[in-house]
């Protein structure tokens, strides 16, 4: 009987997600209709752009890997209700770390170069999260505001590095020259193009899940998230765990940035963070911070993102449409959850 109840709960949960998705897709259809576009064509592009060919699959991977890692960078501090909206800046610092190592130690062989690059990018990302973490620890400054402010500082820092001694003078846009090829992430498959990044991105949520739900420290993170004060009263050092979770998040975001440099851009580019941060927040919140759920919602958001680009290319629909749809998706899921709970 207990099992049944659990099954019912899961079914209800899945149902609320499906309702949320349906509502968001319906909204997309209405907007397409209002723009005078072919709604059916839009839907088919939206859902098929990620698959169907090896090229599409490669495009999917390119977007999926950073989104997944960025979502985890948000999800881990979310376990104790800390909002790491600074994952954008931490991502950029990771990228800066990657090019710094690549240009300063340019003669390293690949075997040493790649691990070093990954470690450096994680360390730079963690370093960037360390400031808000310390402000939280010492002064209890709200992390939403402090991490966001660090983002803006990082934008100018990237601009400074991209226009500094390593700049590519022939590019029309602030960016550095390409990093030495020893630092490129090893390619595992060429068609579809898959490199080491995908492996790391798939292992990361599994490790995160284990950490949060099976380890002692994860227990304490969850306890702090459930009731910070009660956790503190019973010996959990929430005051230290919360800043620490931000630093862990920073390391993961930094890793994402480093992999973006070493696996895709091969250089530091102004604006390379794209809209990853906003999307990662939506992905993580849809999954309520559960790392396994993050895999599913990251896949879904990536599919919609690529669908949006395809609709833009084929049908001339503004790309911002999907951005609105993604936010609506989260809001609809929140709504569906409330109504599901009230029904019971």
């Amino acid at each position: 009987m207990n099992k049944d109840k659990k099954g019912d709960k899961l079914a209800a949960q899945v149902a609320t997600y499906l309702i949320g998705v349906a509502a968001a897709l319906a909204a997309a259809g209405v907007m397409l209709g209002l723009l005078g576009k072919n709604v059916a064509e839009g839907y088919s592009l939206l859902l098929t752009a990620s698959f169907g060919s090896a090229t599409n699959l490669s495009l999917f991977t390119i977007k999926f890997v950073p989104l997944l890692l960025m979502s985890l960078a948000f999800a881990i501090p979310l376990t104790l209700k800390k909002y790491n909206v600074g994952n954008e800046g931490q991502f950029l610092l990771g990228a800066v770390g990657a090019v710094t190592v690549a240009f300063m130690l340019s003669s390293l062989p690949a075997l040493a170069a790649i691990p070093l690059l990954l470690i450096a990018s994680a360390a730079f990302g963690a370093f960037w999260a360390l400031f808000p973490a310390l402000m939280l620890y010492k002064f209890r400054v709200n992390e939403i505001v402090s991490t966001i402010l660090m983002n803006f500082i990082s934008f100018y820092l990237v601009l400074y590095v991209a226009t500094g001694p390593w700049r590519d003078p022939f590019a029309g846009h602030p960016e550095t020259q390409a990093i030495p090829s020893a630092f490129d992430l090893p390619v595992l498959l060429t068609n579809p193009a898959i490199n080491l990044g995908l492996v790391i991105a798939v292992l990361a949520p599994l490790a995160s899940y284990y950490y949060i739900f099976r380890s002692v420290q994860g227990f304490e993170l969850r306890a702090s998230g459930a009731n910070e004060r009660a956790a503190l009263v019973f010996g959990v050092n929430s005051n230290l765990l919360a800043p620490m979770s931000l630093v862990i998040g920073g390391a993961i975001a930094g890793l994402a940035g480093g992999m973006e440099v070493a696996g895709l851009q091969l250089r530091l580019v102004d604006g390379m963070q794209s809209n990853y941060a906003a999307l990662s927040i939506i992905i993580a919140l849809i999954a309520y911070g559960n790392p396994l759920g993050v895999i599913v919602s990251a896949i879904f958001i990536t599919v919609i993102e690529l669908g949006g680009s395809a609709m833009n290319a084929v049908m001339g629909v503004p790309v911002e449409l999907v951005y609105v749809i993604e936010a609506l998706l989260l809001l609809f899921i929140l709504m569906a959850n409330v109504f599901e709970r009230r029904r019971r």
Partner: protein
Amino acid sequence: MPAEELVRMTGIAKRFGDVLALDHVDFGITGGKVHALLGENGAGKTTLMNVLYGLYRADEGRVEIKGKEMAIRTPRDALRHRIAMVHQHFRLVSNFTSFENILLGTGRGLKFEARAQREKVESIAREYGLSVDLDAKVKALPVGAQQRVEILKVLARDPLVLILDEPTSSLTPQEADVLLGAIKKLAMNGLGVVFITHKVREVMSIADEITVLNGGRVAGRLQVSESGEKRLVELMMGGRGAPPLLQAGPTPARTSAAQGEPALVLTSVSVGSGKGASAVEEVDLAVRHGEILGVAGVSGNGQRELAEAIMCVRRAGSGSIKLDGIELTRLNTKQVISMGVGYIPEDRMGDGILPSMTIAENIVLGREHSPSFSDRFALNRKAMGAAALRGVEDYNIKTTSVEAHAGVLSGGNVQKILIARAFLTQCKFLVAHNPTRGLDIAATDHVLRSLVKQKEGGAGVLLISEDLDELMAVSDRICVLFKGQVMGVVEAGSYDKYEIGAMMAGKKKEASAS
């Protein structure tokens, strides 16, 4: 003056989920009389009055005011019908001044047209002896003064019906007497007063009519003249079982406890309150193994800070706290717990429960590091589940599974979880702060017996409580705190409620021959 029926409630039913909290209750309020609403915690007294005050909506039943049926959907409706309520937990905005609190929600003017109002409040305060500093921020006032603000606030609205929910629970016996006097005077002036309580003695001293609730039903309706304490207790309990510890009277003098080894020794401990002034000042205390030391005092006199300093949740500013000779002030909470110190915090929702986690996780909280529940890195979920199941059975926690979320449990069951957590293993020492608040008589009895069992197992117990009856029933000694200082210590066998009450109000114990 002829008694006029102001309110008649008929067939009131209220459900919370599957629980029938009120089972078709009838209740009437007459002007000029004090109506006691007597019952255990959870009997439905407050729920019934919350329905009348528009905070809850009844599922069935009707409310008549002066003979006319009225729908009371919000407190605004109730206030319009001149029904006012003083809640057990004060409803005051702590960042506002007393006067701002009294003014709140009364006027719609664009300016503070407050002079007339102020004079009115001052005259009410004089008439009923409820003096209070109108311009002080409420958070700076002691509990007794906050209650006076609360009462002035409702009286300023000229109520016909005044509901008071457990108004004496955080007062000294002397303050309570003053309040009961004021209530009598209010009734003499024609108000219909409803007095919610679970204390039989208070009912006998103040009420005109008594309605006893049990399990959401009316168990009896009597005039004070035709009732006796014993009869009322029977009605409250629904004729169940033997008299519990509380009714057994104060602990007799004991010599065995005085011979135990000292467990916890506090030497001139001072604790800051976080707001400059220290909340605990120069306290010296010793609790022996096999002894329950009761700590009496009006809430807010340093009890919480004292408990948290022992648990190292808060740092003692100076002094030494030793358990079995080991200095605690240099440890952290985790280390204190792993030394075998159990803790039942005062605020179970705020400081105790993890609502979105499972019952098993809640019970293990604080010992997740111990080798019985984890290796260095990973949790041992099987062991956690087994220990939790034992707790659920031992303390009769009503749930379908230890994997259920704690957030869905009732207040009483939440308290049982905290007790199961504290007693996961035999304690060396136990700090229990208001461990029975909000529990019904049977559960209270169970908790108090558990404390005694821990003590008999050799633990030293520090029982902090606002309920003097409870303290006198189980403590071997009682120490009284006032403004963070120890006013004196009384030995079992010589407890005197009024002597302790005087100490709670700040009178140092006379240095007697002992």
